[in-house]
């Protein structure tokens, strides 16, 4: 590896400052040059890494406890419930269909003509001859 592939001390310090004392957690594209610097100036590199690692150790104390098994269940159940629930638009579509149906029925009722009672009456007795009467005794 040539000199140009070695990181300068300032950049090494910046990376330790930002990403901590474990070089394997530094940006992937800078790790090789950082390791080269560790070879060329091991004392300075180690001092910077040790200082950063001390803070890492303190930070590790504040690790957030993992979510509870109950939360996993609640969250997964919400997804599964949603998967089996009808989509939101289905309710709207049903309401629109109902309104259309009711509207069509009402319109149809309004448009239907009133029955012609005289015609019905005439039609009901049209089978009778002029001499026939409704009553057998001829009254």
């Amino acid at each position, binding site marked *: 590896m040539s000199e140009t592939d070695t990181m300068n001390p300032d950049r090494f310090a*910046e990376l330790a400052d*930002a990403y901590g004392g474990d070089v394997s957690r530094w940006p992937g594209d800078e790790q090789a040059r950082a390791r080269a610097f560790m070879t060329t100036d091991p004392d300075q590199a180690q001092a910077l890494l040790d200082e950063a690692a001390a803070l890492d150790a*303190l*930070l590790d104390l504040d690790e*957030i406890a993992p979510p509870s098994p109950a939360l996993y269940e609640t*969250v997964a159940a919400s997804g*599964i419930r*949603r998967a089996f629930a009808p989509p939101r638009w289905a309710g709207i579509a049903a309401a629109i269909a109902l309104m259309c149906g009711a509207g069509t029925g009402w319109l149809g009722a309004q448009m239907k003509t009133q029955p012609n009672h005289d015609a019905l009456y005439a039609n009901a007795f049209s089978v009778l001859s002029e001499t026939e009467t409704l009553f057998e005794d001829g009254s």
Partner: protein
Amino acid sequence: MSRPVLKVIDGSPRRTGGGEEARAADARLAAGVAQGEAGAIRALTQRCLPRVHGVAARLLGDREEAEDVAQETFVKVWRKIALYDPDKARLETWVTRIAMNACYDRLRKKRETQISEDAPERADGAASAESRLTGEDALSRVRAAVAALPERQKLALQLCHFQDHTNIEAAQIMEVSVEALESLLARARRALKAQLAADRDELIADAAGLHGSGKEI
């Protein structure tokens, strides 16, 4: 602090890390969730809930509220999963960003309802001395110091230190450039170092004791 302004890193957001195989796996999982497959829904929950919950707990500082935000986040995920584009981001990056936005919304609402005499957010790196002293042991002192950081610094630390996101993924989630992310991390760590420096040796000894005792944190 205002919500971070969207910075377009290079014109169009691009997926980072993982390669073609991971992209295909993300696409399959998202398709399964969109089709309502229970297995896919469980797998996505298993994979992303710890990250979502961690970000929410770190930003909101309250476990119950973090659980609320986690549920709210996943309701959005189930609803919007069809919009996920595997060419643009890892699935967990996309989900974590939804969680981050939900947290910022809550924090903004909280700020809006705060009465005017409430103290403004502490300036960068200027966490007060009393927060250093409030804790009785190493854990509570470190916790207080981290909690006193500005929101974006806390989030950067959570994503990179605690959740092992790459710098590019973390920058994508936070909608900032990689350089800005690095600056947030460095400022956060410098502030913590300054705040905890006085008691560092004692804290490290306490920390070793806590780790040695296997105490659950």
